[in-house]
């Protein structure tokens, strides 16, 4: 009998609106109880609520908050991509990217502002503001023995607080069955979307749909617990940063070497021009789409 009882699922808690529970539970019955451990952190006094309303930023301050968020390197990079997308003859893509970059700048600026308004207690950042997989130590992911350098020159990787993820991240690798299902779906998707003509509406709908879905998933936080590396050594930042900058400048030089930004040039080919022969065939598009999906899966797992 005990085994049978032990195998039973625990009874689901009834909502607090249930009068039977409400009468028994002193934390619900007695509003004077204000222990956050019992009542949760959501209780705020009227004074705090009023203070928050008074501190709502005005229009000028909103612009300043957004501008402060542009200091985030990824936002600046997105704005640069947006600019070059517009001058390359894709104004709608560029506008969409600029809107997203501005929203991210606003989000980052607001969180930096909230952090600045929080009284300094000398305590560590609460766990609720970190992603569940974030480690407190500076150990490097997958390389715990490696030395953990402390410099972050240029603020390339700033210490913006991370919000709590919207879902519970996995702890280990995905199951083999899930990998097989995901891989099969990716191949099916790539075959279908790859069969569509490049720059057609069906191809646009397929790519935009998957891209939007992944961004929405990413907005909710990581899907897998991972140890986050500590700040990198100056040498590491310089190595990766210089490759990124040189690559960007080389692409820019090729773009500016074209007769016009919209017209490709054989003498100064951009990456897009160089990939045109590959993406001209259905098989090439399918392979490229699989690579794009693989990169997306790699990123979502970070």
């Amino acid at each position, binding site marked *: 009998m005990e085994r049978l009882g032990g195998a039973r699922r625990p009874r689901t808690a009834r909502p607090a609106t249930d009068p039977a529970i409400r009468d028994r539970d002193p934390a619900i019955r007695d509003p004077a109880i204000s222990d956050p451990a019992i009542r949760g952190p959501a209780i705020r006094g009227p004074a705090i609520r009023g203070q928050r309303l008074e501190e709502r930023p005005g229009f000028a301050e909103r612009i300043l908050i957004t501008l402060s968020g542009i200091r985030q390197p990824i936002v600046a990079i997105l704005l640069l991509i947006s600019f070059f997308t517009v001058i390359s003859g894709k104004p709608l893509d560029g506008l969409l990217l600029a809107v997203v970059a501005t929203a991210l700048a606003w989000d980052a600026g607001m969180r930096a502002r909230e952090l600045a308004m929080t009284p300094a207690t000398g305590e560590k950042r609460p766990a609720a503001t970190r992603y569940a997989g974030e480690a407190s130590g500076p150990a490097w992911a997958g390389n715990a023995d*490696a030395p953990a350098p402390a410099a972050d020159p240029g603020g390339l990787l700033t210490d913006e607080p991370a919000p709590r993820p919207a879902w519970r991240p996995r702890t280990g690798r995905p199951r083999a069955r899930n990998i097989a299902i995901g891989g099969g779906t990716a191949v099916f998707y790539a075959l279908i979307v790859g069969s569509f003509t490049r720059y057609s509406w069906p*191809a646009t709908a397929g790519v935009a749909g998957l891209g939007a879905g992944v961004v929405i998933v990413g907005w909710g*936080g990581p899907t897998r617990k991972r140890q986050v590396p500590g700040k*990198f050594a100056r040498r590491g930042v310089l190595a990766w940063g210089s490759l990124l900058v040189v690559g960007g400048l080389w692409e820019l030089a090729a773009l500016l070497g074209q007769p016009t930004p919209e017209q490709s040039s054989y003498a100064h080919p951009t990456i897009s021009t160089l990939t045109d022969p590959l993406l001209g065939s259905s098989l090439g598009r399918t392979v490229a789409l699989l690579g794009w999906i693989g990169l997306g899966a790699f990123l979502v797992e970070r």
Partner: protein
Amino acid sequence: MSSHDITVAGFLIILAGLIGTDLAARRGYAQIPTFSQVITRIMRSRTGRVGILVAWAWLGLHFFAK
């Protein structure tokens, strides 16, 4: 050597540099993080995470979409 060849060679050198840096990091040379560690670190904040994923989505739109 034409300007076409120089441009392509430049891209290949940069690609080789990316692969070489990651290999050097994985073998533990110097104090260079791997590509995966760099991306994990950037994506630990919401701005970094969404920014990287939007850049990925833009890549797909740029090469395939209208």
